[in-house]
C-alpha cells in the first residue's frame, strides 16, 4: 500500500502564547514547534499498515523552512520519504487554501490511502482531511481509531459520540482522519535518526502547485479569551495553599 500522511508542525503545547503586533497571529519568534499529535497517530497507523502489508509511507507537510525538523522526525520514525511544500504564508490561507496545496502535491503520487490527524492543535479546524477527500474525489471517514485492509478496500473503526463506535467499509483510494489513542506512538530510534539523513525530502514551492486562490474566510484578529468566572488563586507555599483551599472548599463552597 502506498500511504501518504499529511503532518503539520504546530507550536509546542507548553510554549508561551503571545499575540503578535497587529493581533492577526501569535509571535512565532522564540517559539518551540512540534509535530501535531493527532498527525503522529496518523503516522503511527501508516507505519503499522506498512509493516503488515508492505508498501511505502510518504509524509507531506506545508510550511516554512522550520517544518523540516518535524519532517525529519517522521522520517526517523520510519517514513520512507517526504514532500515539503515550502510555504511562507501558511497562516494567511484558509482551510481550503491549505488543502489545495496538499491535494495538488498528493495527486502526483497516486496514493492508495491518505491519512492525517483529525485536527491540529493550533487552529483546531478539523477540516483538512475532509476537504482533501473532496478535492481528490476519494471517499473518506473521520475520527478513525483503526484501519484494517480487506479484499474490497479497507474496514475502519470510527469513534461516534458518547462511547459508541462503528465499522465502515470503503474502497481505496480513500482519505481518513485519525483520532488519538488507537495505537501507541513509537519513538525514533538512534538508527532511525541516522537513516533519516539519507532519506529523500522533495521540496516543492507552494507557487509551483498552481493552487493559489482567494480566501473564503478570513481570520480578522485574535485575542485572549474573556474569563467566565473569577478564579480565587490561593497563594503561598504548597502547604499553605493546600490548607487554604481545603478551608475554602469546606466553608465557602461547602463541597467537603
Amino acid at each position, binding site marked *: 500500500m502506498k500511504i501518504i500522511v499529511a503532518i503539520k508542525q504546530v*507550536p509546542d*503545547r507548553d510554549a508561551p*502564547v503571545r*499575540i503578535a503586533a497587529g493581533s492577526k497571529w501569535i509571535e512565532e519568534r522564540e517559539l518551540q514547534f512540534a509535530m501535531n*499529535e493527532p498527525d503522529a497517530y496518523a503516522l503511527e497507523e501508516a507505519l503499522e499498515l506498512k509493516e503488515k502489508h508492505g508498501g511505502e509511507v510518504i509524509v507531506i507537510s506545508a510550511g516554512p523552512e522550520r517544518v523540516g525538523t518535524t519532517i525529519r522526525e517522521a522520517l526517523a520514525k520510519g517514513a520512507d520519504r517526504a514532500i515539503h511544500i515550502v510555504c511562507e504564508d501558511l497562516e494567511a490561507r*484558509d*482551510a*481550503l487554501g491549505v488543502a489545495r496545496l496538499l491535494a495538488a502535491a498528493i495527486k502526483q503520487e497516486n496514493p492508495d490511502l491518505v491519512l492525517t490527524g483529525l485536527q491540529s*492543535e*493550533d*487552529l*483546531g*479546524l*478539523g*477540516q483538512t482531511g*475532509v*476537504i482533501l477527500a*473532496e*478535492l481528490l474525489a476519494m*471517499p*473518506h*471517514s473521520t*475520527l478513525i481509531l483503526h484501519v484494517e485492509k480487506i479484499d474490497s478496500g479497507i474496514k475502519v473503526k*470510527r469513534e461516534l459520540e458518547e*462511547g*459508541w463506535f*462503528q465499522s*465502515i*467499509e*470503503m*474502497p481505496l483510494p480513500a482519505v481518513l482522519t485519525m483520532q488519538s*489513542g488507537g495505537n*501507541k506512538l513509537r519513538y525514533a530510534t538512534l538508527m532511525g535518526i541516522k537513516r533519516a539523513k539519507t532519506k529523500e525530502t522533495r521540496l516543492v514551492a507552494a507557487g509551483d502547485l498552481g493552487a493559489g486562490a*482567494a480566501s*473564503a*474566510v*478570513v481570520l*480578522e*484578529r485574535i*485575542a*485572549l*479569551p474573556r474569563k*467566565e*468566572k473569577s*478564579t*480565587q*488563586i*490561593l497563594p503561598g507555599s*504548597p*502547604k499553605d*495553599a*493546600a*490548607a487554604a*483551599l*481545603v478551608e*475554602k*472548599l469546606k466553608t465557602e*463552597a461547602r*463541597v*467537603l
Partner: protein
Amino acid sequence: MNIFLILEESGGHIKKSSWEALGAALKLAPAESVTAVVLGAQTEALAAETAAKGVGKVVRVEHPLLAPYTPDGFIISLEQLIRAEAPAYVVFPHTYQVRDYAPALACRMGQVLIGDVTGVDDGPLFTRQLMQGRLNGSYRHSGNGTCFVSVQAGAFRAVDSGASAPPAEITKFTPTLDATQIRTHPGEPFRDSAQTVDLGSAQRIVSVGRGIKDAEHMGLMQDLATALGAELAASRPICDNGWLPMERQVGSSGQTVSPKLYLAVGISGAIQHLVGMKGSQCIVAINKDPDAPIFEVADYGIVGDLFEAVPALTEAVKAAKQ
C-alpha cells in the same frame, strides 16, 4: 435573508445541540427567516417536532439512502437543496457527524466552513477558539455565496420557545440520489465493553491531565482521590496512553460530568475537556501555567508544581478529616 439550520437527530428526536445552533442562527436573522432542515429516510415525526419550535419553515429532505448517515448521501442531498434555494447562511450544530461532512459540502460550494463557533457578533464576526482554548479568533466570511457555520455544543442557549406560535409550514424535498454514489458502507453502532464506571453520578472527581507526565505518578493522584472519597478521571491523552481506562475519560469523546467538586490537576483545559465538566458545581484547578484555559472556568486555583501541590493537598484533606 434566508438561513438554513441543519438539524441532527438521535433516537428519534432532534438533539439539544441543534436547538443551541438555532440560538446562534437567531443572532443572524429573526426566526421567520430560519428554514429548519431534517434529513433521513423517514422524517415526518422529526419535522412535526421541529415545526412547533417557532422557526419560519421546515424542509424534510427524505430519501431511503439517507439512513444510515453517510457523508456522500448527506453532501449530495444538501448540495441540491442549497443550490436550489441559495440561503445566505447554513448553520449546523458542531457534532461528530457534521465534522464528517460539512467541510466537504462547503468545499463543493467553493466555500469554507467556519467551524466550532462559540460567539456571533456584529459584522457578522464569528468567534472560535484557537491554540487549545488559549486564544479566541474572530472570523469573517469574505466574498459572495453561502456562509457555512457550525456551532459549538453548550456555547449558546438552546431555543425552547415557539410553543405558542402556530406550527411552521412543512415541505418535502426529495434529492436525486443513487446507491452507486454512496462510497462508504457503515455498520451498526457498537460499544467496546460494558461501562463499569458511571462518573456521571460521582459527587467528587479528581481528574488528571498531561501535567502528570508519567504513569508512575498516577499513585499521587489516587492518594488524593482516596483522601477526598472521589472517583479518579482524566483528560483524553491520559487514557490514550493507557494510564487510566478509556471509560474514565471526561470530555467530548468521553463522559459528561457535573459533580459537586471537580478537581482538575495538570489539565490545561482544551474545549474538548471543558465541555465534559464545566457544569460542575465547584471547579478547582492545579496547574503550573497561570494562563491555562482551565482557570477560565475554575472557582479556585493553585498555580504551581502539581508534584508539590498534590501531596500537600492530600495531607491537608486528611488533616481536615481528623
